[in-house]
């Protein structure tokens, strides 16, 4: 069990001495689709970044299949939030997705025919093949998001950490992209996705990690998406959330009765 999971042990991360994550302890099972849920500023992006070794960890560790990030880098893709880059950069859609292949190519190496085919295939999966040669500034927000997802898929790794891949994506496209993710999971990929839509998480994901400075709950969506846990995570201020939690518990009772 220990060696085939993502193990987060007593993870504490702080910005300028102000803790943002506090003593996070959990196992994320492999080959499943796990959602990371929490309010704005809960530390979701920080968790993904510290898992990737992009920001220093104050204490604790993260192990992928028992190994540290530095020896596992080649097996993990990270998709940052869309706002983290300058979309006026002079580069085409195709070239951005090709960046996903760079980790497999070395220094000095030019992309091969196979890499171009993979890039094309990934663009097709996110339904962006028509835009391959377009400059990225001439895309809508949702289209930019899909390009980022294509780049992550092009990395073809065992683990995927995605920061809000569905923000700004329309409902129909979200379903398409979720199907892509589910297919990847069925092919043995481990995928962690930051997602704000609790309803969609309940419907499409295997597990959920609820986060707000500390871990408030982690487990299969059926078990952890309860009214109580959501209240704990979001501070109980939002009526709508308790409504969602309530609806979910009714759903679950129904399925249990069936």
């Amino acid at each position, binding site marked *: 069990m220990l060696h085939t999971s993502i193990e987060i042990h007593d993870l504490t991360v702080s910005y300028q001495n102000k803790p943002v994550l506090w003593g996070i302890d959990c196992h994320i099972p492999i080959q499943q689709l796990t959602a990371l849920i929490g309010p704005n500023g809960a530390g979701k992006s920080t968790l993904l970044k510290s898992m990737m070794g992009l920001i220093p960890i104050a204490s604790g560790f993260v192990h992928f299949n028992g190994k540290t990030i530095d020896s596992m880098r080649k097996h993990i893709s990270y998709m940052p939030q869309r706002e983290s880059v300058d979309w006026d950069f*002079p580069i085409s859609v195709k070239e951005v997705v090709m960046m996903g292949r760079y980790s497999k190519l070395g220094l000095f190496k030019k992309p091969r025919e196979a890499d171009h085919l993979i890039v094309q295939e990934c663009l097709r999966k996110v339904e962006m093949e028509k835009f391959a040669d377009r400059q990225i500034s001439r895309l809508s927000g949702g289209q930019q998001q899909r390009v980022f997802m294509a780049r992550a898929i092009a990395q073809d790794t065992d683990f995927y950490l995605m920061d809000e891949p569905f923000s700004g994506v329309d409902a129909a496209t979200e379903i398409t992209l979720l199907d892509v993710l589910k297919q990847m999971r069925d092919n043995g990929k481990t995928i962690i996705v930051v997602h704000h839509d609790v309803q969609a998480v309940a419907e499409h994901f295997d597990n959920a990690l609820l986060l707000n400075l500390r871990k408030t709950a982690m487990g299969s969506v059926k078990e952890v998406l309860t009214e109580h846990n959501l209240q704990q995570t979001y501070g109980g201020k939002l009526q709508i959330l308790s409504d969602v939690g309530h609806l979910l518990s009714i759903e679950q009772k129904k399925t249990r009765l069936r």
Partner: protein
Amino acid sequence: MDAFWIILTGSITAIACALAGTFLVLRKMSMLSDAISHAVLPGIVSAFLLTGSRTGFPVLIGAGSVGLLSSFLIEYLHKRGRVQSDASIGVTFTWLFALGIILISTMGGNIDIDPDCVLYGEIAYVPLDLFSIGNILIPQALISMGSVLLLTLIIIFIAFKELTISTFDPEHAQSIGINTTMWHYILMGCVSLITVAAFDAVGAIIVVALFTAPPSAALLLSSRLSHVLILASLFGVIAAIAGYFLAIWMNGSIAGAMALITGIEVLCAIIISRVKFQLHSLAKQKMIEI
């Protein structure tokens, strides 16, 4: 022959500046070139005190490392000292520049460095300081600038992917194991070397124009990085040639005229990109009407 050497030196300087400058502009760091161009002064003065020459490789390396040091200091003040990033630039370069001025003014008697010349350079004197290779005489400034350009070209050719990705998306770059800090300092090292090599020719103020204006103009006109690099270099060369003849015609400073031309290039690029945009929307309207 003099005209040839001046235009050639100006063009090579402009190309080196345009290439490194494109990455600076894309990283929103063009003011770092301003900072480095002032910060290298104490390096140049001390190298001059030690070697008795204002050009040549010892000066290039000595003053170049002071430039690199200033980019370390700026980063340190910002990251560790938590000084605002623009303030840390302001503090660092004025401090180092002041150090250079003090060096010049206290050692003034035995130094033939003129603070004006540091700020504005004098490309017209380039053909006066010649270096012989076999039986050909080549300006010293051209040799240092040429070597620095070669180094810049080699780095861009070898590491085009790494530079592009760490400029576009540093987090993704780090996530696949690219050392973005190293590439930052390699770029800063290039900028420092270019600045020092260009210092004799165009001076500390004009070099900033060459770092920022041609890349900005090129970015308005092209949407592919490789084309932007080529276009920016071309704009640089045009500025060197047109600047030379403009200066001769006006009987003024050549470096000043070059900077003037780069400004006009940016203006033209803005107009062209506006017109292109208008034509685009016009064409779209036509399509809809049909």
